[in-house]
C-alpha cells in the first residue's frame, strides 16, 4: 500500500508556516551556494525530478540546456499561473509555504547562473500574491536575496509579477510575452526559451511545485528523492482531489499512487454514489472512468492508458453528472481562453462549442458526433500550442467512453440528468 509523504505540505498546519520564522533558515540554499553550480544541475538530474506543471519534462535536463559562458543575462521564470481547470495545488502551496518556492528559486538561479528571477503569478489570487511579496521581502531582509547572498558573492533579484486573467499565459512562451508587456500569445519554437527566452536571453521556466521541490533534493540528496515514486516517475507530488469525494483536498504522495488508494484516504465517493468519470490531471487530460481506478498515477502508466498525468488534478464526478454538460463547459472554457493566434484553435473551439450546445439540448443528430470528432481531429496536432490539443481531450475521450450518453440526448430530445442532483446540497 502506498502511503502519503508530506514534504511541501508538511508545515501547512502551522499558523506561521508562511513566515521566515515558521519556515526556518534556508539551509538548502546555504548548502547549494557552497556547491559548484553544475553539481546542483547534476543532483537534480540524478533525482529524476520531472516538471510538475503537466508536461513532465526532466527538470535537470532543462537546466542543462542553458548555454554557459555566453555572456548574456540568464533568467529564471517561475510559472505560477495555475489556471488549468481542476488544478489547485500551487495556489495553496504559495499561500502556506512561499519560502519553499523562494529558496528553490535561489538554488535554481544559482545553478543556471541567473541573477534575475521572476514569479509570474495569476492575478486572481490576491492573498497568495500578498504572501509572495511578503516572503520575498523577508528573504531580502535576511540576506537570502540581493547582493552577495550569504557571503557567497552571488547576486540575485526576484520580482513577483501579477498576471491579469488569461489561461494561455500558463503556456511558457505566452507567459514570456506577457511578462515582456505584450498580449499573452505563444511564440514559435524553436528557438526554445533555453536559448532565446525572456528578452531573447537564455531562460528556464519551471512550475511552482518543481522549483519548491528543489530545496528538499539538495537537503536530503538525489537518492532520497529518487527513492520515492516509480521507475521513470520519481519523487512525490501533490494530488488534488475535488468533486464528488467525501473529503476533497491536497494529498501529497509518491508518484504511482492510484486513485483507489487516494479515495480510501479521502473517505471514498460521496455517500450513496459511485464514480462515473474523472480527470487524472486537469481538463486537458483525457477523462478516465471506473475502469481506471487502479492505474498507477505516474507519467508512463497514465500515458499507456490513453491519458496524461498532467497536474494530478483529480476531478471526480459521480453518476449524477451529465458528461455532455461537463464537456460542453470545458469546451466553452477553451473557446473563451483561445488566444486567437492560430486558426485551428480559434475557429475549432468556437465550432465545437456551437455543436456541443445543440447536443446538450438534445437537438443534435448522430452526425454531430462525427462533426465534433472531425473538428477535434483538425485541432489536435495542428494548433500553435498545447491549448488547442488540450481542448480536444474531453471531446475524444467522452465520445469514446460515453457515446451512448450523447445518443440518449437525441433520443429523448434533452438532457436525461437533473443538474440539481449533482450539487453539494442536492444530495441532502
Amino acid at each position, binding site marked *: 500500500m502506498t502511503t502519503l509523504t508530506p514534504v511541501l505540505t508538511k508545515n501547512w498546519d502551522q499558523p506561521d508556516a508562511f513566515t521566515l520564522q515558521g519556515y526556518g533558515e534556508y539551509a538548502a540554499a546555504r548548502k547549494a551556494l557552497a556547491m559548484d553550480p553544475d553539481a546542483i544541475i547534476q543532483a537534480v538530474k540524478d533525482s529524476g525530478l520531472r516538471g510538475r506543471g503537466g508536461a513532465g519534462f526532466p527538470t535537470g535536463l532543462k537546466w542543462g540546456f542553458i548555454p554557459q559562458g555566453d555572456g548574456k543575462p540568464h533568467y529564471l521564470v517561475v510559472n505560477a499561473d495555475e489556471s488549468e481547470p481542476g488544478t489547485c495545488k500551487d495556489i495553496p502551496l504559495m499561500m502556506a509555504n512561499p519560502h519553499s518556492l523562494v529558496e528553490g528559486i535561489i538554488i535554481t538561479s544559482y545553478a543556471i547562473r541567473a541573477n534575475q528571477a521572476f514569479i509570474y503569478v495569476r492575478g486572481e489570487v490576491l492573498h497568495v500574491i500578498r504572501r509572495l511579496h511578503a516572503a520575498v521581502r523577508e528573504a531580502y531582509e535576511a540576506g537570502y536575496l540581493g547582493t552577495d547572498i550569504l557571503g557567497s558573492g552571488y547576486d540575485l533579484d526576484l520580482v513577483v509579477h501579477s498576471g491579469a486573467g488569461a489561461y494561455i499565459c500558463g503556456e511558457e512562451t505566452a507567459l514570456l510575452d506577457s511578462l515582456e*508587456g505584450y498580449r499573452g500569445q505563444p511564440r514559435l519554437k524553436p528557438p526554445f526559451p533555453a536559448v532565446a527566452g525572456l528578452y531573447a536571453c537564455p531562460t528556464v521556466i519551471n512550475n511552482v511545485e518543481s522549483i519548491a521541490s528543489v530545496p528538499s533534493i539538495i537537503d536530503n540528496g538525489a537518492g532520497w528523492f529518487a527513492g520515492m515514486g516509480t521507475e521513470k516517475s520519481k519523487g512525490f507530488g501533490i494530488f488534488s482531489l475535488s468533486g464528488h469525494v467525501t473529503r476533497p483536498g491536497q494529498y501529497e504522495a509518491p508518484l504511482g499512487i492510484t486513485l483507489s488508494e487516494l479515495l480510501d484516504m479521502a473517505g471514498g465517493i460521496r455517500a450513496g454514489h459511485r464514480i462515473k468519470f474523472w480527470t487524472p490531471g486537469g481538463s486537458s487530460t483525457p477523462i478516465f472512468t471506473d475502469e481506471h481506478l487502479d492505474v498507477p498515477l505516474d507519467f508512463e502508466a497514465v500515458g499507456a492508458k490513453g491519458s496524461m498525468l498532467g497536474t494530478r488534478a483529480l476531478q471526480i464526478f459521480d453518476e449524477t453528472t451529465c458528461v455532455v454538460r461537463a464537456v460542453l463547459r470545458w469546451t466553452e472554457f477553451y473557446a473563451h481562453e483561445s488566444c486567437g493566434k492560430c486558426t485551428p484553435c480559434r475557429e475549432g473551439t468556437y465550432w465545437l462549442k456551437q455543436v456541443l450546445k445543440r447536443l446538450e439540448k438534445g437537438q443534435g443528430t448522430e452526425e454531430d458526433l462525427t462533426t465534433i470528432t472531425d473538428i477535434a481531429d483538425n485541432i489536435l496536432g495542428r494548433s500553435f500550442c498545447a491549448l488547442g490539443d488540450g481542448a480536444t481531450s474531453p471531446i475524444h475521450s467522452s465520445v469514446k467512453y460515453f457515446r451512448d450518453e450523447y445518443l440518449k440526448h437525441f433520443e429523448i430530445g434533452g438532457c436525461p440528468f437533473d443538474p440539481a442532483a449533482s450539487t453539494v446540497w442536492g444530495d441532502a
Partner: protein
Amino acid sequence: MSVNPKAQEGSATAGTGYPPEVRERLERDAKEIIGRYPKTRSALLPLLHLVQSEDGYVTDAGQEFCAEMLGLSKAEVVGVATFYTMYKRRPMGDYHVGVCINTLCAVMGGDQIWDELSEYVGVGHDETTPDGRISLERLECNAACDFAPVMMVNWEFFDNQTPASAKQLVDDLRDGKEVSPSRGPKRLCSFKEASRVLSGLPDGLASDGPAAAGASLEGLRVAKANGWTAPAKGDDQ
C-alpha cells in the same frame, strides 16, 4: 446594463488626463514599479493594475498614462489591456463578485449559485448595480476546486458556497458589514485597493488569515493520523 453614476466619479475623465496631484502620485508609484524590471515595457501589466486602482477600471486617461510612462503608443497599450479579462472596460462595483462556472464548480452547484445570485442582484456577467456597489462575473477556474463551489470577491477566496450564502454575502457587502474571506485577511478590501496590490504595491495584510485551512489540510491530517511521513534523510543509503 444600468448606467453607473460612478462612471463619472473617477479622478480621470477621457481626454483630460489626471489632475496634477493625482498624476504626481501615480508617477511616483509607476517609477518604483518600472525600476524593478530590466526592460521598462515589462511594467505594462502592473501599470494597468495601478491605473485600475485609481479609477476602478481601465480608463482612457489610465491608458494614456501607461503609454507615456513606458514610451508606447496608446494603441499598443489598448491592444494589451483588451487581451486580459481582469482589466475592466467599464466601472466595476466596490465589490466585484465572481462565481466559478467552470465544469467542476458548475456541477457542484456553481451554476445554480450564478443563476440565483444574478437574478437576486439584478445584473449579469461583468455588469454593475446602479448604486455602484456590486458587480458580478462568471469566473473560469480559480484554482480552489477542493473548496467547490467557489466564489471570489475582489479576488479573495470565499469557499464552499451555497445559493443562500452567496445572497447573504452580497447583502452583507451592500450593508457595509464586515466580511471576511475564507482564506485571507480579516477585512475585505475594495476592488481599487485590490488592484493596487496587484500592481506590486503590497498593503501589509499578508500575515492575516491562516496558512492553510479546510480541504488544503485533508491530506496532512490523514498522514498525521496514520503516522505517515516522507522517508528520513539518508534512508536511501
